[in-house]
């Protein structure tokens, strides 16, 4: 059984001038254990795909389906999709002043556990685990007391997303340009985090502009998204080809 199955997905972004179609018949299948890289020109709809899958407000689904495991996603509330195991690492993580990182993570863990009928983690064990993860991503433990992303640098925000990924251990992770804005060391740290997360049960959709990331996180498939649909798929060598030739030859 596939982990994620997106079929002929059409979606629009809601703008002041009315809905504007962005995804135009996108089909994608992710099996357990696979990493799919999605590349493509600016504005081609990569973030839109991530947002529509996770149920962000501001979009309408005009057709098609998306199923996670056995669960059709597109009718569900965003938190329900998250509770089913869908995780989105944001291209632009948002700040939540006054809500400490630790508090936020605890609320998240508890919600997920509750939804799955699992026992909520013991606070002490939980905090220990979070601290360990933070230091494994070179995040100062003092971060955990600060407001969510409050005053974090761009790179710190991205590492924070990966820390959440490792803590929450979702079924499917959609990483939207988690590599952009990272220095070389941080890129390795983040890639190492993603590799640690990978297992034969879960899957990753890796949205990126840079072939470089794929040296660290080796994808099983590379897709090119252009004008709202996947126009080319291949293995890692496709990324190298894109780096050499750009996107023009595909569109």
């Amino acid at each position, binding site marked *: 059984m596939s982990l994620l199955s997106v079929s002929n997905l059409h979606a629009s972004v809601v703008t002041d001038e009315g809905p504007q179609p962005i995804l135009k018949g996108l089909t994608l299948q992710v099996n357990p254990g696979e990493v799919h890289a999605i590349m493509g020109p600016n504005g081609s709809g990569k973030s839109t795909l991530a947002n529509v899958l996770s149920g962000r407000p501001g979009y309408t689904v005009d057709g098609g389906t998306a199923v996670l495991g056995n669960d059709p996603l597109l009718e569900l509330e965003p938190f329900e999709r998250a509770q089913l195991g869908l995780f989105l690492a944001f291209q632009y993580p*948002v700040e939540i002043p006054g809500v400490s990182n630790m508090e936020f993570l605890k609320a998240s863990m508890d919600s997920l556990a509750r939804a799955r009928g699992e026992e909520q983690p013991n606070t002490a064990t939980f905090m220990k685990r979070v601290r360990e993860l933070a230091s494994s991503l070179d995040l100062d433990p003092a971060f955990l007391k600060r407001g969510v992303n409050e005053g974090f640098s761009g790179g710190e925000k991205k590492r924070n997303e990966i820390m959440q990924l490792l803590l929450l251990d979702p079924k499917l992770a959609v990483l939207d340009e988690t590599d952009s804005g990272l220095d070389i060391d941080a890129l390795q740290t983040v890639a190492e985090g993603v590799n640690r997360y990978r297992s034969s049960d879960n899957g990753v959709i890796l949205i990126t502009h840079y072939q470089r990331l794929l040296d660290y996180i080796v994808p099983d498939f590379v897709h090119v998204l252009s004008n709202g649909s996947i126009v080319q798929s291949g293995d890692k060598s496709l990324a190298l080809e894109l780096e050499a030739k750009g996107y023009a030859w595909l569109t």
Partner: protein
Amino acid sequence: MSTSTVDDLVESGSEYHAGFVTDVESETLPPGLDEDVVRYISARKGEPQWLTDWRLKAFASWQEMREPKWAHVHYPPINFQEISYYSAPKSQTDGPRSLDEVDPELLRTYEKLGIPLHEQAALAGVVPDPAAIGTPAGANVAVDVVFDSVSIATTFKENLAEAGVIFCPISEAVHSHPELVQKYLGSVIPQRDNYYAALNSAVFSDGSFVYIPKGVRCPMELSTYFRINERNTGQFERTLIIADEGSHVSYLEGCTAPMRDENQLHAAVVELVALGDAQIKYSTVQNWYPGDENGKGGIYNFVTKRGLCAGPRAKISWTQVETGSAITWKYPSVVLRGDESVGEFYSVALTNNRQQADTGTKMIHMGKNTKSTIVSKGISAGGSENCYRGLVRISPTAQNARNFTQCDSLLIGDQCGAHTFPYIENKNNSATVEHEASTSKVSDDQLFACQQRGIETEQAVSMIVNGFCKEVFRELPMEFAVEAGKLLEVSLEGAVG
């Protein structure tokens, strides 16, 4: 006071009315207000002549005064002749016998607030289980339960008495400590201070009296739960707290009102006096019935609260979490008369649906090197109006006075309003006055970020709002901080679709 049986409780409640009360059956004065009503109230409580005269003087002032109209709130005119001004407690047997008989909606709210069962019972008016009332959760909280207008149970008295602390209904203090009451009643808020203070002075029902002797640290937090019980009964609480030189006290006031259909007037007066080196911390969680989502019903909360730092290095700190009432009109203030005295005001005011709040503070600097801090967090949701109104006055005598004001508004949705009216009157050029203000929204992006991590919408909103209020919640005593957080969550129900 031992409260081993229900009968004891009833007894102790009627004790100081001996001679006037033949039974404890409920007795409510017919609606209307004139001199005779004022005299009746005073006589009913067996008050000394000076207090009857004091009330009559207040009543005379009130008759000459006009209802204030400057607040940013709108409501139909109040007919003061339609209100009943006295209500004795109902017979204990009239109340529900157990929680099973209480409106489940009310219990659901209590439960969400995390109020312990025996306190729920007390709040819901269940015939009290005396053993439970004597041992509130958190142990070290002395609860003076005000049922309607007359206090009927006071606990922890002995413990406090040992420390020399006086904590009793003000109606009792009038008899047991007349010299203190006469000296300080109206000393901070004169009878004709404002329209509602004058009304309260004329007809006040009951409230708490606290005296902390010189150098004493009150051994526990003092707490009062107020409740409006009877239909159409105005509630006119009167509280007086005196901290003698070098003493410390922390007082908690919490309110929960049951569902009511008609608007009810609540015009309380709270006076605080801190003598030299004394400290008073007064915390409020106010959750009167706010009316339904269309603005029907709800309490009109027109309160006058003021503290006087009478001596050097005195400190008065107001912390309030205001989530209830249809209309709130309230400005807990501090008069900084003593040199180096300190005034603080930490406030969270949340309005939802059709609620209106006009609240803030006044810091009146008179002494040298006086210092005040104002942190106000206003949260508006639904179609509500939330307004901060603050005055910082630096008198010519207030050499080197300092004030810092931070005033933040948070909007949820786009049907609500937030307004800020800071007034600064500086008559001394050695003073420093700082004002910071911000307005922000709970953004869709923030909500989505929480939801994407599995957190449900209402919890997400409440978490974000709690984060916004953190600086104020930090000032609350522990017992209240948790309750306050939950209160926001309950009050915001339905604020985000």
